[in-house]
């Protein structure tokens, strides 16, 4: 074939693939349609017609024949001479699969045996429609199911619920060949279904479609970059520092825009993965005699191409599990008092900078007792441990390696591979899976994924002389423990070091125990790292006698001399939290992931490596792998005299997490943690003066800094250690860094904040924590004090409105703070101290255009008030916004259920103002 033909052939292949990508949905659409949808049929017809034409041109006889006979069938349907049945659609789907496979293997296409397909299509054309295959299967499945109670329940496999899995229905005796592709055994049916879309997704491997506007944007950025480069070169040549600064800033801005734009070319919608499940669910439910409604939500959520491609298999496994083990047959559902149609939901959505995919069903759920029995049988846990675990943790055992049985049938059926493989496959692309199940109600599996793989934001830490990167998605928080706090905060429970963190005990891991790193400690005077010759934590653990126990202080504690504090990074592996003690917290950085060689294939504790700015290598920790390595288990978390998690949650609703920072010796301030984006540590030598303002080079950009000195404090920043911390927070689209000499703690503060005694400009109030008076900083206020221009520049002009907003809040501190902020934006603010008073205000002030309410209040709480307002027709359409000091998904859901329109964080001024500007609209007052 000469070049010309080769090119045309390539074109034909690409075009055909494109057409075929939609054919499956169209065929399924035809099936779902009552009567005839000409558009759909025409589209399928045209696809086949085009393929037939091309195949004829290239002498691909087989392909031509198959497409031709399918086309004939569609022609009849189009002319309304043939009624679309499930069976016809099944045979067309099978035919389309073969066509797609032939297109992918054009050279071998003439070797395909298409006689079965042709026979079926001929049969249909001649009116000898084969018996409906599904009907047969359903009958059989029902028959099987009736016998089921007598079958001794097998040990639980994977997610198998109470329902012992029905033996795979035998293929119905001898239906016409037509049914072959679809009916056979479930294994094969699914493999066809799985293979086809996987291929079409994979076939695009080497190229990607990019929207023209995006390309234009890239061109534009490249142009800007060239201009800025010229400016940069010029300023370097002339040596004029005044020119250098703006040029550097511009390069920074353009680079990040370029990065974002280029990354977005890799983004694809998750629909590519989701759409194939329509077919899988249809085929499988037919085979198993189950009735299932598939609901797909959020199919337009975008993810990196690599992640999308890696998602197919694990998700297929989860969906198959749901259909196979989770959802019951109509008869079983009826017996359980549920509607016959089971619901399977695939839902993708964004949450906290990640993408979450939920696979949920309203099936039988998982019986924790069976999981427990099986785990004990397998020797994974003992009964004692089970007794200490709660149901959720027991169900999570299915993710453990070795939980699923090895002697299972085949891996295609989805029964041979266990959930641990699913979890591992997801982990390869940075995904984290968790499961929730309620017996009789259903099962939900949540998969959290990063948006992209190529570059991951990470925290860099130093342990001994080594550097490690911990992906930001796994980092929950960083805790610094002051020397005099160590004894109280770090304790040994059952021979394991535990950190006391807001009423929870979190196990601590000493990486040097596992990584063969010589433990070191930093001499507080000289700042030099020295070998630590003291006992290692792991050694201590083996000593179980009383003497050792009484002396059993954490290695971290021993290692640090009395004058140094301990830094701990709290990470989350799935729902399990633990702390990693680190010697040094370096900056957070966006790191580029590099793969590790074959010698690391069994080292689950590393997910890759990265190269730092100075050229050295840092390994990327896989927090899940590290946990396995250390053997820390979830059950430890429930040990001790702990409040249950529910307590913790309800407690959190009205408490306020504050970050305690030190400015000078006796000056300690509190900052609301919700407003803090990051905490960084810099050396004093990094400090630069830009104009009359201090700033620091940071992530390749410039971070403006403000110091409390001269604003709310008369003392200079105590930076004797030559190091200082920067609390990074966002105002408008810009980041501001607040300098602090030390980070003391993070606490949950529940008591009242005194908004009188210490209140002044920049200070919103005061509070007492551990007998010490803290001044509560107004992060926006200090900005204005620092330089009035900030406000104008970053927050924008207040627009005078005459709109009234009702603020219902019991804490005088928050009430006055929020009132001030909303008033500053030009609104009239009316206040009420609890829900009852709020309702009263609403009645007496018809001019109120929106309501902001706290949740936890005396007399009548926020949710009750919201329900009451919702119940009154005259307030229909009145925007209701809940404000909390802690955003939690559960609290948010409760609020949404009660009828709240939005959730906002109390002290986030921008969000508050923004929500008022968006929602407060003059409204027609009902007489």
């Amino acid at each position, binding site marked *: 074939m000469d070049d010309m033909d080769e090119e045309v052939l390539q074109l034909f292949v690409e075009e055909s693939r494109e057409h075929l990508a939609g054919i499956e949905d169209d065929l399924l659409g035809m099936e779902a349609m009552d009567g005839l949808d000409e558009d759909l049929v025409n589209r399928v017809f045209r696809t086949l017609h085009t393929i037939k034409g091309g195949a004829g041109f290239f002498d691909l006889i087989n392909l031509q024949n198959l497409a031709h006979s399918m086309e004939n069938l569609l022609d009849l349907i189009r002319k309304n001479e043939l009624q679309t049945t499930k069976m016809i659609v099944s045979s067309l789907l099978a035919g389309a699969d073969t066509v797609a496979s032939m297109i992918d293997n054009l050279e071998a296409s003439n070797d395909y045996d298409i006689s079965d397909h042709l026979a079926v299509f001929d049969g249909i054309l001649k009116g000898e429609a084969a018996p409906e295959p599904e009907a047969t299967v359903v009958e059989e499945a029902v028959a099987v199911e009736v016998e089921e109670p007598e079958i001794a329940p097998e040990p639980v496999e994977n997610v198998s619920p109470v329902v012992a899995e029905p033996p795979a229905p035998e293929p119905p005796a001898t239906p016409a060949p037509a049914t072959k592709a679809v009916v056979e055994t479930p294994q094969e049916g699914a493999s066809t279904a799985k293979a086809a879309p996987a291929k079409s997704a994979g076939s695009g491997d080497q190229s990607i479609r990019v929207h023209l506007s995006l390309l234009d944007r890239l061109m534009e950025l490249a142009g800007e970059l060239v201009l800025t480069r010229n400016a940069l070169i010029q300023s370097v040549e002339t040596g004029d520092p005044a020119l250098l600064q703006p040029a550097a800033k511009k390069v920074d801005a353009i680079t990040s825009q370029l990065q974002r734009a280029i990354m977005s070319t890799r983004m694809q919608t998750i629909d590519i993965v989701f759409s194939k499940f329509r077919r899988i669910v249809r085929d499988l439910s037919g085979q198993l005699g189950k009735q299932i409604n598939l609901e797909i939500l959020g199919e337009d959520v975008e993810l990196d191409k690599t992640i999308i491609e890696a998602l197919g298999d694990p998700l297929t496994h989860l969906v198959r599990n749901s259909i196979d083990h989770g959802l019951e047959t109509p008869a079983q559902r009826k017996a359980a008092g549920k509607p016959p149609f089971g619901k399977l939901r695939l839902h993708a959505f964004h949450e906290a900078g990640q993408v979450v995919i939920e696979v949920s069903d309203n099936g039988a759920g998982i019986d924790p007792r069976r999981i427990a029995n099986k785990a004990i049988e397998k020797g994974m846990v003992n009964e004692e441990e089970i007794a200490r675990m709660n149901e959720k943790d027991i169900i999570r055992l299915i993710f453990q390696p070795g939980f699923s049985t090895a002697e299972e049938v085949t891996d295609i059926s989805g029964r041979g591979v266990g959930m641990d493989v699913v979890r591992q496959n997801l982990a390869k692309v940075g995904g984290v899976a968790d499961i929730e199940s309620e017996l009789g109600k259903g099962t939900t599996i949540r998969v959290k994924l990063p948006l992209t793989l190529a570059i991951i934001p990470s925290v860099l830490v130093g342990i001994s002389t*080594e550097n490690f990167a911990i992906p930001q998605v796994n980092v929950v928080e960083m805790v610094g423990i002051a020397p005099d706090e160590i004894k109280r905060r770090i304790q040994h429970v059952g021979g394991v070091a535990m950190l006391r963190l807001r009423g929870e005990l979190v196990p601590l891991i000493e990486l040097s125990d*596992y*990584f*063969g*790193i010589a433990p070191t400690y930093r001499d507080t005077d000289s700042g030099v790292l020295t070998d630590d010759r003291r006992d290692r934590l792991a050694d201590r653990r083996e000593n179980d006698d009383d003497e050792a126990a009484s002396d059993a202080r954490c290695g971290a504690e021993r290692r640090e001399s009395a004058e140094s504090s301990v830094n701990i990074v709290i990470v989350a592996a799935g729902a399990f939290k633990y702390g990693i003690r680190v010697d040094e917290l370096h900056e957070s950085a966006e790191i580029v992931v*590099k*793969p*590790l*060689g*074959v*010698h*690391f*294939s*069994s*080292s689950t*504790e*590393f997910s*890759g*490596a990265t*190269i730092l700015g100075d*050229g*050295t*290598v*840092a*390994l990327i920790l896989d927090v899940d792998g590290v946990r396995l390595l250390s053997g820390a288990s979830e059950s430890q978390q429930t040990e001790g005299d702990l409040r249950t998690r529910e307590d913790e949650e309800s407690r959190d609703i009205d408490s306020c997490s504050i970050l305690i920072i030190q400015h000078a010796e006796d000056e300690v301030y509190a900052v609301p943690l919700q407003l803090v984006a990051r905490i960084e540590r810099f050396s004093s030598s990094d400090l630069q003066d830009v104009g009359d303002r201090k700033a620091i080079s940071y992530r390749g950009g410039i971070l403006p800094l403000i110091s409390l000195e001269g604003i709310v404090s008369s003392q200079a920043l105590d930076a004797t250690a030559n190091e200082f911390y920067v609390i990074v927070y966002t105002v408008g689209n810009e980041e501001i860094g607040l300098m602090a000499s030390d980070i003391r703690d993070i606490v949950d503060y529940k008591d009242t904040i005194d908004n009188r005694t210490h209140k002044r400009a920049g200070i919103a109030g005061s509070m007492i924590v551990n007998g010490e008076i803290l001044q509560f900083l107004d992060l926006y206020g200090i900005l204005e004090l620092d330089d009035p221009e900030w406000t104008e520049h970053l927050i924008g002009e207040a627009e005078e409105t005459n709109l009234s907003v009702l603020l219902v809040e019991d804490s005088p501190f928050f009430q006055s703070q929020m009132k001030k902020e909303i008033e500053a934006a030009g609104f009239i603010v009316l206040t009420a101290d609890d829900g009852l008073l709020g309702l009263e205000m609403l009645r007496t002030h018809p001019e109120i255009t929106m309501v902001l309410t706290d949740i936890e209040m005396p007399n009548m709480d926020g949710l009750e008030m919201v329900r009451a307002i919702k119940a009154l027709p005259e307030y229909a359409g009145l925007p209701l916004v809940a404000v909390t000091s802690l955003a939690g998904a559960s609290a948010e859901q409760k609020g949404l259920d009660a009828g709240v329109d939005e959730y906002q964080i109390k002290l986030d001024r921008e969000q508050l103002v923004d929500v008022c500007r968006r929602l407060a609209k003059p409204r027609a007052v009902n007489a």
Partner: protein
Amino acid sequence: MSEALFLEDTEIIVFRVGDITIGLPITEVREIFKSPTITPVHTPFSYVNGVINLRGSIVTIVDLGKRMSLSVNQDVKAVHIVLVEFGEELIGLLVDGIEDSVFASSDDFFPVPATVSGADSDFFRALFRREEDLVAMLNLENTLETEVA
């Protein structure tokens, strides 16, 4: 063994690990350089010294002396890295010193005895007679094998 014996005429890079003189056909050597700082890494293989940054790629470093369980003189510091291709990745072999590059004709190769200066014969594919001494030709596959037997 016989097929391993029949090496073609080739140029050989000769280096030293402990007391053994080892050779690799020049075609199997990608690069030789002085060892940069190695970042130690914990792996199940004690002979994996760590990783290095080689122009932006992460390269695993295998300590040949440890791999062959040789009692390497502690005073001699392994200083050179012989970069080889293994499967789809590059691996750096940490060796004590680079000696020579010599031309070998296919007639100069001999079968390997059971041990070579204390190292298991599996690590080698042939012996090569260099004028007055013998050079053990490294079997890369067996040496870098990661399957735990």
